[in-house]
């Protein structure tokens, strides 16, 4: 039973790869005095992935705005794609009846409440993995380093690299550009003396954590470092699976794989976990 202020935590779709991030966000929101109800996955998709079919995209937007309206609570968005798609398109074609903010915005505005919760030392020199885009909507490239600087032991160093786009997942279909992002991220981390690269978005984490698996640099999401400093217990299983490659099958275990189906796991899940960045440049 909680007496916090009810909010809807709209986490998006692909962050479902990272249960630790979702669980940590919920615990952080509770610690800040909210009572978050998480919603996401394909049934709450914003429709941004359906550029090639605007009838489908429009239907998804109408359904999701309607469902969020029914919840009658302010919405805190996690996903930058969902957040920008709501502002750019979804609310233009539907009547949004809820207030909405982005998690980084809320955490940054709650620094006075967040600071006393960050009690555990996290000795680490970190460089934020930054993109050019999205910052006009939420200045994450300024806010996230300010949040990270509140963690005891964390030193934030400036990297000299700003990746194009607004997040890494868009580059899955542009391999040369993604190779450049990987190479420049490693170069900038080394040049800045960082122990680790920290991402703001899960879409970047999914791609950049491959650098960790390849031994090029340690990689975290900013929520994972806040959670660690708060003493939250969630394990980053995605990173463990990614590092393990083929060994992920053993880590995940037959019981969980059976829920997915072994054929689908081997065809569509395991290749992602085995994929490594091209660092040959």
């Amino acid at each position, binding site marked *: 039973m909680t007496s916090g202020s009810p909010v809807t935590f709209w986490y998006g*779709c*692909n962050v*479902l*790869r*990272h*249960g630790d991030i*979702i669980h940590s966000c919920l615990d952080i929101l509770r610690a800040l005095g909210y009572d978050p109800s*998480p*919603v*996401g*996955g*394909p049934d*709450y*998709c914003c429709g941004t*992935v*359906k*550029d*090639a*079919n*605007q*009838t*489908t*995209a*429009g*239907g998804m*937007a*109408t359904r999701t705005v309607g469902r969020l309206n029914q919840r009658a609570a302010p919405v805190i968005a996690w996903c930058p794609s969902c957040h*920008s798609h709501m502002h*750019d*398109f*979804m609310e*233009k*074609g*539907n009547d949004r009846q809820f207030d909405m903010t982005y998690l980084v915005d809320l955490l940054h505005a709650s620094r006075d409440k967040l600071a006393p919760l960050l009690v555990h030392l996290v000795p680490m020199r970190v460089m934020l993995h930054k*993109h*050019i*885009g*999205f910052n*006009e909507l939420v200045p994450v490239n300024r806010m996230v380093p300010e949040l990270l600087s509140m963690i005891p032991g964390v030193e934030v160093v400036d990297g000299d690299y700003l990746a*194009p*786009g*607004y997040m890494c997942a*868009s*580059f899955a*279909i*542009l391999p*040369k*550009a993604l190779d450049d992002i990987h190479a420049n991220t490693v170069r900038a981390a080394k040049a800045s003396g960082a122990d680790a690269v920290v991402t703001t978005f899960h879409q970047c984490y999914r791609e950049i954590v491959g650098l960790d698996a390849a031994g090029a640099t340690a990689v975290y999401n900013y929520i994972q470092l806040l959670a660690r400093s708060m003493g939250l217990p969630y394990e980053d*299983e995605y990173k463990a699976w990614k590092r393990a490659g083929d060994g992920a099958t053993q880590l*995940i275990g037959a019981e*969980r*794989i059976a*829920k*997915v189906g072994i054929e*689908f*796991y081997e*065809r*569509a*899940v395991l290749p*992602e976990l085995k994929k490594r960045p091209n660092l040959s440049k």
Partner: protein
Amino acid sequence: MSDRPVIGQRLKEFQQSEIERILGACTQCGKCFEVCPMAQYSKAPAADGKAVVPGVLAVLRGEAGSPEALGWIGVCTRSGVCVPACPENVDPKMMMRLARMTALGGRELPKQIDVKQDPDYFNRVRAFAKLQLTDDELKEWT
């Protein structure tokens, strides 16, 4: 005739009104292309933005885009540096987004670019959810 609303009709009307605004405001100066950090990755690189932007506007009108315009549309990843670069407040990021939707065939016009679709996209999301969340969380959170 049915009274049922057409799916996504208001969104389509918004998109059409944005297209008309953009077509009316853009002077084809090419500044948006010149500042774009992704132009270098185009399949049909161009040296001059003035030669590329007319092809983007053609796509928005439902006409065939030039190879240079389609190449640029195919690599737009929404960096947004084009927005402050535009002297006419066209919002080239919106221009490129709508051009991409159109060129992909998303606005019921002929497809002009082919971007590899991931047929497992949502099923992969669902699979990772099953690996990461409990049955109760799956039921209540997704």
